[in-house]
């Protein structure tokens, strides 16, 4: 017995052979792929990414300056895992789930290395309320109790990797996440915390079809290109096209119950904006701080590259955990291009044969594995939950043909094409209505019929048609000027302009306009439709386009966006529209 432990120990400790940036080589450990290892005297955290004969190649999550060959390497024998339990919400983590607030206490304002900090607070006590009684049958994923974590109820589940059985004992009261709260007849002892390896998807009962939209309050998204709960979307955008603002709007306003936001290789100051704004923002539904239903992961561009690679896995595992409780979770990854670049950087240090543009050949596989972890599911406990994934891609030079964008588009169902030209014109959100698409329109059709109006799907198609027509007409206008168009088409151009300026443009910084519910969207679009119908009718009655375009009451329409209780004002405008057109028609 003693010999055995001795052997295990000698297998677990080796020495460093080579150091070149974030990738190091060790010998003398019997490691498995993706085992977590401690590197050097300072015990920096790393992960095994390649085994080559005697050589174990390790990516290190912290800066390796000053580390020498000959220093020890210890294999923990465990995979990179996150701690899941009460305390996740309101937390701000780095890429490997170290809480940033704790790191500030431990090492000051700058990120130094060699400091470990657990993801959850192990000293804090939570009030656990059992939901099952002794003698109850539980299976993996069963909910056995709950904790009021913030305004969100944190459901405590049997971990998916624990065998089911009969509850032998369970007790309510105040406990830390490590204390045993429940035992099963098969000998399993359960605490509130469970660990899960980040690179393995958490199991579900069944994947369902997405039939409910994720309402975001952004007109162009909900109205024209909706994403379903459990769906996937990509926002590509050249820099400066408003990608970050759009993602932050989504995080703030989408009607998911839990938001996981991954700042992957992004700007420190923008992360700060998120970190200072979120706690101040009010959740429009509960009036509580938005932070209470949020988990933030911040790995800025100058933090270690290997931790950036891990950050998206950390994020999606946390998202899946809340999904398993039966929540709708939305996960934003900003930006998956930085994640792909981290893969490329590590791959090139491994001297792997590069694929397209230097990215590793497994890029497409990694991207699809990641997006496939989204979905609307029947959980192991029988409830319904969803993880919607919205990934930003940052194509170099705005060139959508580059590998990360192309491989992403092959997987995701919604594409919100940000356009630098639009943002230069200060058309925000700068989402191009001609290039964007949503493949969820059919599956969401019934929902819009039932929840908004049976007319909505019709009016949506009408608006898209006008916009498409305008694009064609604009080509002619470029050549001959707008006055040379036939009268009816001059009206089309005017109506399209209204759709663009009134409906599509939305001011994220205006207190009212920042969120627009489906009812208001429908009413606004209907008013534009009303103008359009009246205009065409008037034109066929002989009213000139100049007169139609200079109808006064329509100039008030843009102001509707900024009015909270818009209905009276809108009714007034709509009545005036009728009157004005009546007058025009009778004059003609």
């Amino acid at each position, binding site marked *: 017995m003693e010999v055995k432990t001795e052997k295990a120990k000698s297998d677990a400790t080796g020495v460093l052979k*080579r150091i070149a940036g974030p990738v190091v080589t060790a010998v003398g450990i019997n490691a498995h792929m993706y085992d977590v290892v401690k590197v050097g005297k300072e015990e920096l955290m790393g992960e095994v990414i390649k085994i080559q004969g005697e050589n174990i190649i390790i990516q290190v999550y912290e800066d390796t300056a*000053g580390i*020498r060959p000959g220093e020890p390497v210890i294999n923990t024998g465990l995979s990179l895992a996150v701690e899941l339990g009460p305390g996740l919400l309101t937390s701000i983590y780095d890429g490997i789930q170290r809480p940033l607030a704790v790191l500030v206490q431990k090492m*000051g304002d700058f*990120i130094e290395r060699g400091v470990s900090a657990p993801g959850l607070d192990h000293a804090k006590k939570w009030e656990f309320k059992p939901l099952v009684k002794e003698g109850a049958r539980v299976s993996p994923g069963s909910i056995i109790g709950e904790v009021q974590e913030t305004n969100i109820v944190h459901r405590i589940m049997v971990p998916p990797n624990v065998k089911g059985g009969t509850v032998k004992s369970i007790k309510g009261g105040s406990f830390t996440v490590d204390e045993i709260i429940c035992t099963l007849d098969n000998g399993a002892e359960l605490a509130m915390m469970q660990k899960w390896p980040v690179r393995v998807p958490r199991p579900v009962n069944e994947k369902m079809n997405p039939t409910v939209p994720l309402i975001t309050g952004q007109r162009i998204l909900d109205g024209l290109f909706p994403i379903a709960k459990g769906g996937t979307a990509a926002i590509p955008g050249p820099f400066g096209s408003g990608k970050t603002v759009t993602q932050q709007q989504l995080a703030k306003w989408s009607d998911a119950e839990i938001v996981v936001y991954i700042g992957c290789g992004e700007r420190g100051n923008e992360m700060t904006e998120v970190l200072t704004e979120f706690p101040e923002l009010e959740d429009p539904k509960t009036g509580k701080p938005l932070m209470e239903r949020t988990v933030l992961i*911040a790995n800025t561009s100058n933090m270690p590259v290997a931790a950036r690679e891990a950050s998206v896995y950390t994020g999606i595992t946390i998202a899946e955990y809340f999904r398993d409780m039966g929540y709708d979770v939305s996960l934003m990854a900003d930006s998956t291009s930085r994640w792909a670049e981290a893969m490329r950087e590590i791959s090139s240090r491994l001297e792997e044969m590069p694929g397209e*543009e230097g990215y590793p050949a497994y890029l497409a596989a990694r991207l699809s594995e990641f997006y496939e972890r989204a979905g609307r599911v029947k959980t192991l406990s029988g409830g319904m939950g969803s993880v919607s994934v919205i990934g930003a891609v940052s194509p*170099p030079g705005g060139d959508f043909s580059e590998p990360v964008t192309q491989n992403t588009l092959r997987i995701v169902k919604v594409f919100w094409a940000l356009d630098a030209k639009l943002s230069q014109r200060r058309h925000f959100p700068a989402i191009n209505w001609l290039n964007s698409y949503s493949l969820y329109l059919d599956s969401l059709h019934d929902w819009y019929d039932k929840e908004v109006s049976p007319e909505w799907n019709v009016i949506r198609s009408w608006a898209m048609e006008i916009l498409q027509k305008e694009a064609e007409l604009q080509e002619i206008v470029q050549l001959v*000027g707008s006055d040379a168009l036939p009268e009816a088409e001059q009206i089309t151009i005017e109506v399209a302009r209204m759709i663009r300026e009134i409906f599509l443009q939305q001011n994220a910084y205006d207190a009212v306009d920042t969120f627009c519910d489906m009812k208001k969207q429908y009413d606004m679009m209907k008013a534009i439709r009303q103008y359009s119908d009246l205009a065409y009718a008037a034109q066929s009655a002989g009213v000139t386009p100049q007169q139609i375009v200079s109808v006064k009451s329509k100039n008030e329409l843009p102001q509707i966006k900024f009015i909270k209780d818009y209905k009276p004002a809108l009714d007034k405008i709509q009545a005036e529209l009728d009157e004005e057109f009546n007058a025009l028609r009778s004059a003609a």
Partner: protein
Amino acid sequence: MKEYRTISQIAGPLVFVEKTEPVGYNELVNIVLFDGTIKRGQVLDTSDELVVVQVFETTAGIGKDSGIRFTGETIKMPVGRDMLGRILSGGGKPIDGGPEIVPEKRLDITGAAINPYARGSPNDFIQTGISTIDGTNTLVRGQKLPIFSGAGLPHNQIALQIARQSKVPGSKEAFAVVFAAMGITKEEANYFMQDFERTGALERAVVFLNLADDPAVERIITPRLALTTAEYLAFDLGMHVLVILTDMTNYCEALRQIGAAREEVPGRRGYPGYMYTDLAGIYERAGIVKGKKGSITQFPILTMPGDDITHPIPDLTGYITEGQIVVSRELHRKGIYPPINVLPSLSRLMNLGIGKGHTREDHKKVSDQMYAGYAEGNDLRGLVAIVGKDALSERDRMFLEFADIFENRFVRQGYAEDRTIEDTLNLGWDLLSTLPVEQLVRIDRDLINKYHPKFRQAGKAEG
């Protein structure tokens, strides 16, 4: 200290050393030549068999007989209060004939990342006195805002004007300036130095000069030395620091040179795949730390090869920095100074520093309206070239006109003209008043009634 004479290979800026005792990654290396000259380098790759050293100066004179000394520590920079007013080489040695720097501290030049949780929110408006920046691409303290320029454009004048005029209204404190030149000509350097001396700015400046004929590899450490100094001034001494880095294109060329010498797999256009991470390690060293008084605001300048904004250098820079100021050749040819094209320019932190309590409540909307108007007018110019002005509708003609007066009155200003933010915004309203009120769809009625010259005067007349 042990000295090795086991050099096996020298290639470009890299020296390969065999059979050493364990050497730390990134360690500082001294290379002793036969005549006693010492050159400095850094460990890029270390293993039992082979150590790769990157030399910061030219490798001329290094041979198999040269001695290698590993110092056992990473590169550190001596910093002290008396650095202000000094001129240093790109490697950090005084070149102004003055004494050595008296170090109060020795700091690692790589600099650790600021914990995002410890960052303060940057929201103090900086008035540069240039309308196209203050009005439409507002800068805030702690921001990094690069100037994207091209060969032969007046980016240096703009940078100097910013350095000279920048202030936070209501604050008496002047900015300290850390200026790092990488691979610029002696003439350009003189231009900066003379201006610093003339305006007395040198007293509160630290200058690092790596000129065009200095070793290219030294450029790798110049910005890091400058930023280490800036961090000391900002976070230890509590000063507000403006850092000007010029020209980042030369820095990236040096990076490519080393990558090629190491025979790495190149990324786009031959630049190394880790260039994003490397640049982030420089640009991200700007900002504010909660509970500390100072701040670092960065102005990197880069010349876009072939004026191509999609070139990897401006492209990756734009992904890290908080916006960009784009200098336009077209406006320069029209004789407009400063030739800043506001359309592709952007300040991502603008909204944090404007509006009530910072500048004025109407700032955001005036700016948006001007942008939209100018963009529309600018588009119409293409149309006019085909169909002529007469074919335009009356509305289109107004926007066309607006684009012209925007360039001539808002963009154009003197090299020494220092406009206050009120001047800039009022000028904006004057220009917008040439358009019919109903075209100002981006501004709410209340603001129009309060600030639009027509109503402003009407209101006064009634009152």
